[in-house]
């Protein structure tokens, strides 16, 4: 009997990623060097680490995935229970084909298509994405993504100022709906402050719709930013008249939930100059809030001052159809500090998932998806409206979310629902401290009647505990 001593003792788990592990000496020698240290003679010793990095040891694939399953497994996935949280990001079903195609190495492991001859696949896919978005929002121009919905909105504001400032009677000024969540507003402020843009707010009526009278104050400014549906889920017919009120030299910027456009009119068709939005519901899971992709579309007026990468259709030397990045002179790698934006790496792959989802859905599929969201929302509204102790805050049309008023603190109510295995919605106190008894309830295509009934039952229980009589 033979015993094998410590066969794995010397094994280095990172060897599977480093093809030249074990060939260092050979390679160094051919360069006339002796040790790895010889490669670092140019780094002065006073800036060198003296010790090994004080970090944990390397792990193998098996250990990493085991830890990932353990740690991520301890997170509560929305799909595991009735879940009514949305507030800008929406749990949806992404068809299996999307994942299987987007993870093909040719897409996944490519860089920005600087060499168009070997990047036609991604370039054409992005040109098609531009077309899909353009059709979706009803505007002729779209870029191939910004970081997320918030930066898209922020860049729309600075873009509007660049375009309109010269003629604006309210120079360096933009108006934004007061309902915009503070997190998003904060992004806008950060992006606007460098150009010294003043952001003023637009009031809404108590029913959640825009105050069109006050809107008149915005005329002559560089731009107005509104959302449809608005952050409380309300579909506001008033937006159709906004462009007439603010006039041609003030950009109407509309933020959209893209799935709603399967049934709701495209803002480009009621005068929007720029349409932005969080693309996530088309093609991507929520993923803890990123990666997402920001939609940015506009009229030709904004084309040469807009942010982000754009693909154009061209020809090759044989006259064959070909695609390439175009209008790059707006961008940082050419225009440097005069660029329209600093964006370089964007969200192409997530936009590609969006394109794939859109290509699968087609116009009918998008309509169906919008209907399912709308129907689930209406169904939830009806059931919660007749739930003891619960009130709908706005008697309006909603797309896929709406506010309810609960007896007592929204925070406590959500904690109670959570203890009973329900993610009951979004605590509106987070956005608007004054609304401390309001919850934003989201119902999507993934919401079932059973989910809604469970929510209703638990809300009724909570109301009872709060002393609302049955």
């Amino acid at each position, binding site marked *: 009997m033979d015993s094998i001593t410590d066969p794995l003792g010397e094994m280095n788990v990172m060897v599977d990623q480093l093809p030249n592990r074990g060939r260092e000496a050979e390679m160094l020698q051919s360069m006339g060097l002796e040790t790895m240290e010889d490669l670092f003679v140019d780094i002065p010793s006073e800036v060198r680490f003296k010790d090994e990095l004080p970090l944990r040891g390397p792990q193998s694939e098996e250990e990493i995935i085991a830890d990932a399953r353990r740690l991520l497994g301890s997170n509560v996935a929305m799909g595991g229970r009735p879940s009514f949280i949305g507030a800008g990001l929406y749990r949806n079903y992404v068809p299996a084909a999307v994942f299987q195609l987007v993870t093909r190495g040719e897409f996944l492991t490519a860089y920005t298509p600087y060499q168009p001859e*070997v990047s036609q696949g991604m370039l054409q896919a992005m040109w098609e994405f531009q077309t899909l978005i353009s059709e979706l929002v009803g505007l002729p121009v779209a870029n191939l993504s910004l970081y997320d919905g918030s930066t898209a909105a922020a860049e729309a504001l600075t873009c509007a100022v660049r375009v309109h400032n010269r003629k604006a009677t309210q120079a360096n000024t933009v108006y934004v709906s007061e309902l915009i969540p503070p997190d998003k507003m904060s992004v806008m402020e950060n992006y606007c402050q460098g*150009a010294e843009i003043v952001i003023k707010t637009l009031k809404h009526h108590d029913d959640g719709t825009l105050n069109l009278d006050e809107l008149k104050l915005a005329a002559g400014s560089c731009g107005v930013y509104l959302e449809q549906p608005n952050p409380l889920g309300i579909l506001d017919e008033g937006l159709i008249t906004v462009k007439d009120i603010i006039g041609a030299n003030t950009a109407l910027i509309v933020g959209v939930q893209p799935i709603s456009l399967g049934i709701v009119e495209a803002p480009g068709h009621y005068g929007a100059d720029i349409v932005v939005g969080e693309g996530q519901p088309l093609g991507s899971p929520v993923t803890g809030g990123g990666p997402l992709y920001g939609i940015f579309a506009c009229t030709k007026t904004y084309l040469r001052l807009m942010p982000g990468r754009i693909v154009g259709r061209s020809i090759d030397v044989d006259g064959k159809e*070909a695609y390439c990045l175009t209008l790059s002179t707006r961008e940082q790698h050419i225009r440097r500090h005069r660029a329209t934006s600093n964006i370089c790496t964007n969200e192409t792959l997530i936009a590609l998932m969006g394109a794939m989802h859109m290509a699968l859905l087609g116009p009918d*599929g998008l309509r169906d998806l919008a209907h399912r969201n*709308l129907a689930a929302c209406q169904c939830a509204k009806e059931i919660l409206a007749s739930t003891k102790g619960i009130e709908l805050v706005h008697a309006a049309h909603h797309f896929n979310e709406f506010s309810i008023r609960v007896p007592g603190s929204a925070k406590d109510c959500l904690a109670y629902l959570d203890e009973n295995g329900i993610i009951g919605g979004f605590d509106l106190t987070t956005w608007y401290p004054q609304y401390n008894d309001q919850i934003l309830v989201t119902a999507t295509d993934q919401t079932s009647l059973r989910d809604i009934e469970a929510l209703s039952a638990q809300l009724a229980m909570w109301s009872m505990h709060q002393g609302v009589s049955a």
Partner: protein
Amino acid sequence: MSHLFNHSGAENTGYSQPQGLASVNEPSIPKGLLRQQSARWPRLSEPEMVRHYTWLSKRNFGIDTGFYPLGSCTMKHNPRVNEVIAQLPGIADIHPHQPEHHLQGLLSIFYEMQHMLEVCAGMDQVTLQPVAGAQGEFTAIRCIQEYFRQRGETQRTKVIVPDSAHGTNPASAAMCGFEIVEIPSLADGRMDLAALAAVADETTAAMMITNPNTLGLFEADIKEASQIVHDAGGQMYYDGANFNAILGITSPGLMGFDAVHFNLHKTFSQPHGGGGPGSGPIGVKSQLAPFLPGPLAARRSPTAQESSSAVDEYWYHWHQPEHSIGKVQQWHGNAGAVIRCWAYYRRYGNGLKTMSEHAVLNANYLRHAIHREAKKEGVSHLFVDGAETDVAKHEFTLSMQPAKEALGISAMDVAKGLLDKGYMAPTVYFPLVVPECMMIEPTETESKDTLDTFAEQFVQVLQTDAETLHAAPVTTPVRRVDEVYAARNLCLRHPFEDAE
């Protein structure tokens, strides 16, 4: 040729849906808002959609396809298990606004990543919120801006940037409202300390620089540069795009920097996906930490109640920095990318230094091999090093200026010639300070064999006659694309029948 918009098919969808609640509830919206005309999207079935995107993918080049020596972009192998991990429901199906006790796993990973980056960069606090390198730059410069505002030093309106800097550096600083002061590099590509000293003054908010620099050279004078800027009262900003060269060997902290961004997607291999997503965390020294965008992941001992749902001996929670600039992305950054990069980090752990060593080994070996092959074939005179040096770091530059002058062969011609050999071309014409520049970064995940073969093929391209190279590439899905035509005849979307 497959075209998404040439599908004149039936009233079809590639994704049939259950009616769901639409069957029990008649959906309604305000009449005036009802969409009048559907988007002219294609009507494909699933089989057609799968074939279209498969076809497109075959017209694209990724690391999986072949060697991708794109300088400054760190196109290393993306470990495959990371994609599996990123699709677990515990990351794919969580909402950033879920309560902390729903997200202990995520928070602990965020904490671990913040800590790891702090250790590696020698910084006091890291935030993972910025979603790309450029956004990291913007975020850090915003923090510096607020820092000075709080100190009342509002006269600091300038940011110094070397002329070899990446375009995002000046663009990001300008977006914050700073004036850009560009300083020229020395003839050898290195930073000009005298030029720096000449411009650094009480109007200086920061200097932005990367080290190793964009020529792949380590700036040995970096501490002196930090000294100059600090003496002038400014802050030192480190562009971390080249971090792959120095991990575990040195750190921005040791070099005297106050702030740094990481191109996590490069150094820690989030797949680049044809242009993104990325992840651009930043790390700062303590004076800047109160200004970071929030929330950050923090930890403390759990309460008795909490410890049952804790993932380890800590309770993880979000924490808002005191004077936070607010947010740069609406949520917590690109969490999915952070998870992949965490998985990548775990593979190396305290052996990250080995990774950098191999990145530098491969770059130097390739540089050596190209010179060796060129000498063997007698074409050494056709190019020169972009900068003279004994050792490069993780990348190096070559200038094709001699070939251009002697034979009319430009860097772009060589690039296209390499495409015909089955390679992605190196970065060309960047940095601008090197004429006819090719910037080559092999990364640590390429084998010696690949490097040797590339060196041979590179030299073969140099031996090709100019006419052939001007006509290259010929083996690619399309031949040289007319970028001027694209700009002159803007066609940014399918024209449909009603050509615009």
